[in-house]
């Protein structure tokens, strides 16, 4: 289980800060696929980096922390700053753009060996390792020949699969996947997604998938969160969000999706996300929101329960104490 509580993160641009993540707060339960959606630039990938504790200059966490709970216990955890030690064993990360993330001059196999060196401390002969790997590949319905290939000899989809295999090989309790399907054609996308689901079903671990493509979320995720301008504005079970979106932004996102037997012209979302260097005081969506009142421009909305497991951040959703920009 992964707990993100009140995390603020920013990019340090020497002379100024870009507050990429602003007070994001949610949990990823065991045995679920959690999706994070939002326009590009809304900070979802950054959030994923923060969750993975991948903080190199200029990205830095200014407030809050991420907690990774070991196994099923909800008391024992490691926090931002210590996660590195558990990389790949407890938590693994499938980066964006499978194209260039594999060492072009070594065989796929070698990259597995590298990974193993993290997990298996007891001595193992190369052949035993090979055994393990290829059997694992079989489980994932990948031909072991792939191991003998060089990355540039594999198709994009195949590379993505291999990456997922790599990431899940040591059976970590959390798997973070960043845009796993971008730059792949639809058919391949489908396979990748089914592969992810099957892996998850078998290992019962928690998986986080970041994608700008609502379709992906609809297909695979159990729960999902919508991000806008560095903030989480709505979290809830996926189908509930699709059936009954609460936040105006979410409504627009869903509304923009094509539906069977509906040929009405889809209107996109007017305007652009605000500049994160100095966001305005009130709701960050206010200036693009058609329901916005002048109040919206003053008070920043807080998350409010709107369903059993469903909450959203909008002043229009009934009684709302609001919060100051720096939510103290």
């Amino acid at each position, binding site marked *: 289980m992964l707990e993100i509580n009140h995390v603020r993160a920013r990019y340090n641009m020497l002379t100024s800060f870009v507050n990429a993540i602003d007070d994001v707060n949610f949990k990823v339960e065991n045995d679920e696929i959690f999706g994070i959606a939002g326009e590009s630039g809304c900070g979802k990938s950054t959030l994923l980096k923060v969750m993975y504790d991948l903080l190199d200059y200029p990205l830095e966490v200014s407030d809050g922390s991420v907690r990774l709970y070991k196994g099923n216990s909800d008391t024992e955890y490691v926090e931002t700053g210590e996660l*590195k030690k558990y*990389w790949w064993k407890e938590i693994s990360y499938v980066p964006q753009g499978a*194209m260039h993330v594999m*060492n072009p001059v070594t065989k796929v196999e070698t990259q597995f060996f590298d990974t193993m060196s993290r997990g298996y401390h007891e001595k193992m002969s190369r052949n035993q390792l090979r055994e393990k790997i290829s059997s694992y590949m079989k489980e994932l319905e990948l031909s072991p020949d792939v191991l003998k290939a060089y990355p540039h000899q594999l198709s994009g989809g195949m590379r993505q699969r291999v990456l997922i295999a790599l990431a899940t090989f040591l059976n970590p309790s959390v798997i973070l996947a960043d845009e796993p399907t971008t730059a792949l054609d639809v058919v391949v996308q489908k396979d990748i997604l089914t592969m992810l689901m099957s892996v998850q079903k078998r290992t019962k671990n928690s998986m986080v998938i970041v994608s700008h493509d609502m379709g992906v979320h609809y297909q695979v995720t159990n729960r999902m969160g919508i991000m806008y301008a560095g903030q989480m504005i709505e979290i809830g079970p996926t189908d509930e969000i699709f059936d009954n979106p609460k936040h105006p932004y979410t409504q627009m996102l869903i509304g923009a999706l094509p539906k069977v037997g509906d040929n009405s012209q889809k209107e996109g979302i007017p305007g652009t996300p605000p500049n994160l260097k100095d966001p305005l005081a009130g709701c960050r969506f206010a200036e693009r929101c058609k329901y916005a009142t002048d109040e919206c421009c003053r008070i920043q909305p807080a998350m409010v329960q709107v369903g059993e497991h469903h909450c959203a951040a909008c002043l229009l959703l009934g009684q709302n104490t609001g919060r100051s920009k720096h939510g103290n």
Partner: protein
Amino acid sequence: MKFLKFLGSRLVTYVFTILVGMTIVFFIPRFMPSDPVESMLGQMMSKSSSMDPASVDAMRQTLNENFGLNGSLGEQYIGYMGRVIFTRDFGPSLTMYPVPVKDLIATSLPWTIGLLGISTVISWIIGNAIGLLAGIKKDKVYSKVLEGISICIYPIPYYIFALTLIMLFAYIIPIFPLSANFNVSGFSWENLKTIVWNSILPALSLILTGTGWWVISMMSLSRNTNEEDFVSFARIKGLKERRVISGYILPNTILPQITMLALQMGTIFNGALITEILFNYPGIGSLIYRGVLQADYNLIMGTITISIFAVATATLVVDLIYPFIDPRVRYN
């Protein structure tokens, strides 16, 4: 199959390169204002002893015959190339007639290869090591120190640098002999010791000045690679830094450097003229120089052809093995 096709076309280039190179080297000297016979006559007569034109012509004739310089340029060219290619014989040296150029080269070449071969490899290794460090450990003090030193030595003109070394270590603090003396024949540990001892200063000068370029190129290469996704991913996988360098960065940066090294190894056959002059080191550089200055066609051809051949072979080898060391490159 594909390999054979590649090999074929590459070999054609190889042969062609050598032929073109040799042709150029054959003709350039012959367009020089000084021709060996005339300048030899000139020198003979400049000893202010004078002789009547008839006897001068006689001498010119005999010299031309001896040197095989009769006939049109074309005929000479054909004849010469024929001899070199089929009998691998460069003919006699003109200024040291009748000693075969072959022998002259044979005595000098081993020395050149020994010194330059070793010092080139050493400076390659050192240079790449430093370059790699400076490239990926940008902020570490030691890498900065090393980088700084090699960068500061590199641009010093070699002549001056070598001379300074001599002044420091053979004159002000006389550790090494002022003029090397390789009075050795046959192999023995004693001789080896003499050779090594006498070669330390020249080697040092070559290594120190040679390292710089490797540092620079390796540095920028490894900087780029260091920013590649697969490197950051390797780090994301939480691999040990040592492994990231040895398994990911090095293999990807070393390739161009290997190309360079191979070419360098070819060029050592030019010898190191200034080194040889300054350190009294026997080598092929001064032979080439002498040949050029005295318009000794055969000597020029012999020495330069050797080095052309060497470099060409080096490049050929590089092209052939490249696909083996870099899977991304296919024969085409």
